[in-house]
Structures are given as structure tokens and as C-alpha cells.
């Protein structure tokens, strides 16, 4: 039986969780405090995912970039493919929080959305 130790990232408690694995499936999980921790550990040892956050260039905006994130978590191994697509994006001002800037990132079916408002650049500038 293989034992994997991990630190829960669900909240600041950072519980030390141990997952006992047998042939790629989870046999036992110990050390968690809440259901979220248990779920995290089960997922982390079989299908780890992350929310990716970054910025996208804005044309004609009051700020040069707008902060973005994947609407949901995506598989960990897709992070760099997702970043490549995010870096190729250009948004047109104004941008509102929640605006979809990319429908489906890296074939995950997950959208990239803005997390901040960027107004149009005032003409006087």
C-alpha cells in the first residue's frame, strides 16, 4: 500500500492529510478536519485541479491589463496550455467582472472570465 501525504489547501488550517492508495485508487484518508479536506485529498491524489489566475491586455482601457481567472478549476497539467491562450487574448474596454474572455480554455470546457472592471480610457488623456 502506498501512502501519500499532502497539505490541505482548502482553508488556512492546512491540515496534514494522509491518503492510502492501492493500485491508483484511494483506500483510506486520514487527518482531515472537514468534508472539504477529505474531498480535496481524494481529488488531489487522483485528479489534481487548480483555478488559474492571470491578466489579459486591454485595448483602450483606463488600465493596461485586466485580471482574469478560469471560471472553475482545471486539471493541473493544463495550466501552461491555459496560460498560453490567456497571453494571446486582448480585451476591449470597457470590461466588467464576469465578462467571458475565452469560452473554453485548453479544451477543458472552462471559460476564462474577468475579475475586475476596467473602464474606457478617458478621451482627455
Amino acid at each position, binding site marked *: 500500500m502506498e501512502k501519500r501525504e499532502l*497539505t490541505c489547501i482548502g482553508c*488556512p488550517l*492546512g491540515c496534514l492529510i494522509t491518503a492510502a492508495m492501492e493500485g491508483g485508487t484511494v483506500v483510506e484518508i486520514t487527518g482531515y478536519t472537514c468534508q472539504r479536506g477529505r474531498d480535496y485529498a481524494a481529488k488531489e491524489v487522483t485528479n489534481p485541479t487548480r483555478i488559474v489566475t*492571470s*491578466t489579459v491586455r486591454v485595448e483602450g482601457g483606463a488600465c*493596461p491589463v485586466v*485580471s482574469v481567472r478560469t471560471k472553475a478549476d482545471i486539471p493541473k497539467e493544463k495550466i501552461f496550455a491555459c*496560460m498560453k491562450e490567456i497571453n494571446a487574448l486582448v480585451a476591449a474596454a470597457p470590461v466588467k467582472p464576469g465578462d467571458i474572455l475565452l469560452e473554453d480554455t485548453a479544451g477543458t470546457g472552462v471559460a476564462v472570465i474577468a475579475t*475586475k472592471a476596467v473602464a474606457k480610457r478617458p478621451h482627455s488623456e
Partner: protein
Amino acid sequence: MRAYDIVIVGGGPAGLAAAVAAKKAGAGDILILERDREMGGILNQCIHNGFGLHTFQEELTGPEYAGRFLAMARQLGIPCEIDTMVLEIGSDKVVTAMNHKKGMFRIRAGAVILAMGCRERARGALQIPGYRPAGIFSAGTAQRLVNMEGYMPGREVVILGSGDIGLIMARRMTLEGAKVKVVAERLPYCGGLQRNVVQCLEDYGIPLKLCHTVVDIRGRERLEGVTLARVDESGRPIPGTEEDYACDTLLLSVGLIPENELSRSMGVEMDRITAGPVVNESLETNIPGVFACGNVLHVHDLVDYVSEEAARAGENAARFVRGLLPECEGAVSVVAGRGVRYCVPGRIDITRMAERLPVRFRVDRIYKEALLTVRCDGKLVLHKRKKMIKPGEMEEILLPREKCLAQSGLRSIVIAVEEG
């Protein structure tokens, strides 16, 4: 002179949460003064997720978290002046500020809430030898450049200090195509949250070298490389352990300092350890009607705790201006005992304290299987077992009022780590 019930200095998470809570608690005219070009403070550059799990039971990014509070402030019609620098606050609560529209102006405040946040410790505080080339940034400066100005400060990066911003920037620079070679920490433990070690370093295979520091900086015009060395228990570099790293960028994540120039010059009593004001149970400083909250009071790890603390400061400021906050009668000191570096609040007027008063503190090193105790004049009133406590993660106990009242003539409350 225009008068306001409450003037809040700083429009970051603390200032916004204080304003919203003060308004809901019946304060009249409130004004927030913010020096940056937009409200939201440091959250605007913290584009990563992980904010709001306590406050909103969901995981938000920094701008989204700030957006929630901004929306509440707007809905309550709380005015904010951006691009406005507060120059001075008198002990009579006259606030002198300036901006491009109004020039210099003075306003009178019934109560003041200090919510100026903190700033980063800079290279000058570290005594690192070597040249002063371009390419050395505080982690927060780099964060602002990348996340708000859309500018990458470098390609090959070494990070000194394992504070949360340093860890977050290790990931951010990696995602943007830079090579982060190492994070060095002088202390034997990480300064940031464990989840950031996992998600920002381990995910990307970035090594964290504990007990290491930078002992040399090379490059005249632009940074060319740094030398790391192991340090002994007293923090002195050990000869023969030097390792060279070629890099064009050095990020410093070596501590945050509450920004209290305004507080000091108005005569607010300061705490030597937190570098923030000494406050009582109502988060009120030694000047009646002047409150402090958030990172200007003591550096927090989580914005959720800032919002909660600031809301209490806002409610108390509202009670103060409405004449509902009884005058402070003799205070009991809250003392940092064995293993505890500081406690906030530092004193308590028991007659004014809430039924369950949050007292926040940090320990001085990592303790395992620790027993946290609270003693009122020596008598144990509360204890809590913790599997692990770390200096990098703020601790909290809820102090029960009835236990404090039960001890007649109470003089001091001591919080300590008694085992571990």
C-alpha cells in the same frame, strides 16, 4: 470646515469593511480617503484566488473580494475620495489632506478610523552587501508591475524571504514564463501560509531553501547574480556554504511594516512588536474616538480577518459618534506570555467588551501538540489544544466576558503556550 461623523483613512479592505459596518450601525456622514487611483487597496494587485472563504463561503480573487465590499459601500452611498493623500491628523481629529481637484483641504471628524495598511520592508533594512543594480524589487512592487501595469520585471528570478507575497510571485512569474530558481528563507520555517507553499512552489518544482540568505549581489547596471549561503542558528552566514545563482531579478519578501506615520504624529501610542497602535477591546487607540484596524494595526495573513476586525472598528466608531460607547474605565492589560509575541487588543475594559471578544496573536516559533492557555491573574480560564501552531499563521481565542467578570479586581490576562 466640513465635518463628518467618521473619516476613514485608507480605502482598502479594512477601510471599506469599517465604512460599511459603521453605516449599518447608524453613523451619519462617512468619508473614505484613499491615496491610490482606485479603491480596494492591495487587493487590486492580488489577482490570485483564495480570498473570502470565511466572509463569503466562496473562493474569490482579490479584485472580486474588493468588488463585493465596494458594491456594499456604493449601495450605502458612502462617498470615497480617491487620489487623495492624508498629510496630517490632529489630536483634535482635524484631518488635513490633498488631491488634484481640491488642493489642500481640512475636514473635521467625529471619529477617525485608521486603515492605512502596511508596506514592505525594503533592501535597505537587510544589510545585504554588494552593488545596487536595477532588478531588485520588493515582491509587492513586482506584483503591482505584473498584475496592474502589465510589465514583467525580469526573466531569471531569485526570491529572498518566504512571505506570502514572495510565494505568490514565485508562481506568478513562473506562469508568465520566467524561471524562478529558488526561494531562500533565513529562518528555519516558512513565513507564508502552507497552502501557498503547496500551490506556488511545490506545484512548479521551485525549491524553498530554509536557513539561507543572500550574502552578495553582483552586477553594476543590471543585476547579474546573487550568492546564497546557509546561516547558523543566530542568522550568521556559514563560510563555505556559498552558492551562486545567475539571475536578472531579485524579489524581496522579507516582512511587512504597518504604515503608521500619521498615527505616530497624532500621538497614538504604539506597540513595539506589532509596530501598530495599542488598542483596547473596541479597537480604539489611546485617543478616544480614534480607531485602528487591518494591517495598520497588525499584519494579517487573511483578508477575511481584516474585514471582520474592521467591521468591529466601524461599529464601535459608530457607537462612539452616537454617544453609545461608554467612556473607557480602567483597562486590564492583555499580556503576551511564554511563546507569544504579541496580542491584539493589548488592553480590555471589561465593562465594554463583547460576550466573546476575539483576541489575536502570533507565536514566536513552530509548536507541535501545543497547549494554548488564557489566565486571568494566574487563574486558568481557557485552554485550547493545537496540533500545530506557526508564527506565519495568526491565532485567535475568543475571550469570554463572564470569565473576566468573575475575577474581581482583575489586573492582567496572560495568553501563553504552556506545552509544546
